């Protein structure tokens, strides 16, 4: 590994840590804008019959009457030392709550990613082999269709069709294999659309490149051309896209888990949002940011190793001369 690469890696690592810490502060500030918290709320409900003095006393005991910066500091220093605090809503350690639900979300998210990858591969590579007129056009239409269907609608349809009509899975056992599979399909479909779109664009781009024609001029058939020449360069940029969709997987699980009745990070967020359980929200958002940042860090660090063309970020800009013109810059269609 070159020194330039290590330099680059170190720089990216520092950046990643800064982003995670900032994300923590950002969430705190956003969530603290609203005056209110689960404890005060319960107390204020007249049905519970607390007197104003009692309410004040309880709130003070929780440290909720302290100024926001003080609360932020307490919470932030906890976070840095790995202490996520107690959930205001359930009074249990946030780390326990997250540990309880994380496996389920991880299973769902990874299954969703697998579904998305399979689906996008089938669609994108199908566009290269199906007959021009009919099948291709249809396949090419899939990504935009997938992107246009609200993902809760997909979920509702799947549950009704496969859960109730066909009885493939039991709705009240959302963690069973089949239920997880269908949830993963609901989660994966919109994501597959994004990946497939990039993949198709890349395949089109690459097969239109001069080198593809030259390789065919060397006597390569369609299949070999695809397998040997087009597959790798068109799939490599997808790594970046996949890394970016990690966030979507986590965000999408919010809805998918609600629709499928799964208990996971998403439903934890839902419950915490509706009660403004600040410590839990903080932890989940920070966790999401950590995951996102790490995955993207890995993608950024491996990409230069896989793709020989990439120039490392942060290398000084050089003005190209005519000798460079037509040389290979990486200008891939990485649509957001």
């Amino acid at each position, binding site marked *: 590994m070159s020194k330039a690469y290590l330099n680059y890696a170190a720089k990216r690592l520092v950046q990643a840590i800064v982003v995670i810490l900032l994300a923590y502060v950002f969430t705190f500030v956003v969530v603290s804008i609203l005056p209110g918290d689960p404890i005060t709320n319960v107390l204020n409900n007249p049905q519970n019959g607390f007197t104003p003095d009692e309410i004040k006393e309880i709130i003070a005991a929780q440290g909720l009457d302290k100024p926001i910066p003080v609360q932020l500091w307490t919470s932030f220093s906890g976070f840095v030392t790995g202490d996520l605090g107690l959930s205001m809503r359930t009074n249990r350690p946030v780390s326990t709550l997250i540990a309880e639900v994380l496996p389920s979300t991880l299973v769902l998210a990874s299954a969703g990613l697998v579904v998305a990858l399979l689906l996008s591969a089938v669609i994108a590579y199908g566009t290269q082999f199906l007959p021009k007129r009919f099948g291709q056009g249809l396949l090419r239409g899939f990504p935009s269709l997938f992107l*246009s269907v609200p993902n809760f609608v997909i979920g509702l349809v799947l549950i009704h069709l496969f859960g109730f009509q066909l009885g493939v899975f039991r709705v009240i056992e959302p963690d069973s294999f089949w239920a997880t599979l269908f949830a993963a399909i609901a989660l994966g479909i919109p994501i597959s659309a994004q990946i497939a779109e990039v993949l198709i664009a890349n395949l089109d781009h690459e097969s239109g490149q001069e080198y593809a024609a030259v390789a065919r001029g060397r006597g390569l058939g369609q299949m070999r051309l695809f397998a040997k020449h087009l597959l790798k360069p068109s799939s490599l940029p997808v790594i970046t896209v996949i890394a970016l969709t990690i966030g979507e997987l986590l965000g999408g699980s919010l809805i998918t888990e609600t629709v499928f009745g799964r208990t996971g990070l998403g439903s934890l967020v839902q419950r915490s949002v509706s009660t403004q359980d600040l410590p839990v929200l903080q932890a989940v958002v920070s966790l999401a940011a950590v995951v996102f940042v790490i995955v993207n860090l890995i993608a950024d660090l491996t990409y230069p190793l896989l793709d020989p063309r990439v120039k490392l970020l942060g290398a000084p800009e050089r003005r190209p001369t005519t000798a460079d013109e037509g040389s290979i810059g990486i200008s891939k269609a990485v649509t957001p």
Partner: protein
Amino acid sequence: MTLASASSASHVAAISRLTALRLPPIVALSFAIVALAIAWSLAPSLFTSYDPVNGVPAQKLLGPSAAHWFGTDHLGRDLYTRVVYGTASSVASALIAVVIGVVAGGLIGLLAGFFGGWVDTLFARLVDVLLAIPKFLLAVIVVTAIGFDTTNAAIATGVSAVALFARVMRSEVIKTRQATFVESSFLLGGSRWHILWRHVLPNASRSVLPLAVLQFGDSILVIASLAFLGYGDPPPASDWGLLISIGKDYLKWPWLVYAPAFVTIATVLSVNRISRWLRKTD
């Protein structure tokens, strides 16, 4: 005679203009659907004679028919009417989201890309933070912080799109800033601001337009998802996402879900098509 020929001439001109645009039939259909959605939101009363809020309780939960295209809901209201009247808020909120995303994100990207240095570093970290938080989670948190209603959901959706636009704008600006024509304008006496507003902004914005259109479709979905989770306006508002969300409680009467879902899908699909077409023709 002359009149007829004049009008047919203009007709021919119109057609030739259309063919000059080379509008594929799918795109034309998409424009038609979007136009219909806009018409629904501007003048809903032209498209239906029913009342969106007051129904006939005795006629609740009727299936689709000639009288009620999309059937009726649990309070005996015509669902088609509710969809039509819900368009304005669905479309307007998506628009708010896009405007927030484009203006805030665009400005951040423009300044970061153009000035570079610490301005860039500062904005880049902010954008990184926004990017690192899953978009939908961010929208949920923001809407929690500012309160649950459709406008706030739109604002939250916009905020969650800021990073995207900032990033695209920044990279476009950097690309444009290094373009030869920018240096050329500099040599011809252009000041920094002149170059920023007259050269960099218009050029960098070109790729932002199709993205904004795409984001419009996406915002409809995100806002619908927020409404679905109950973070939007309450009934009797009839935002599309809300309608689907209410409909899911009455799954015995599936049109309550499928009709608004269909309208949402058709609109978003059309918007996506248009964006794709814009990208291609650019």
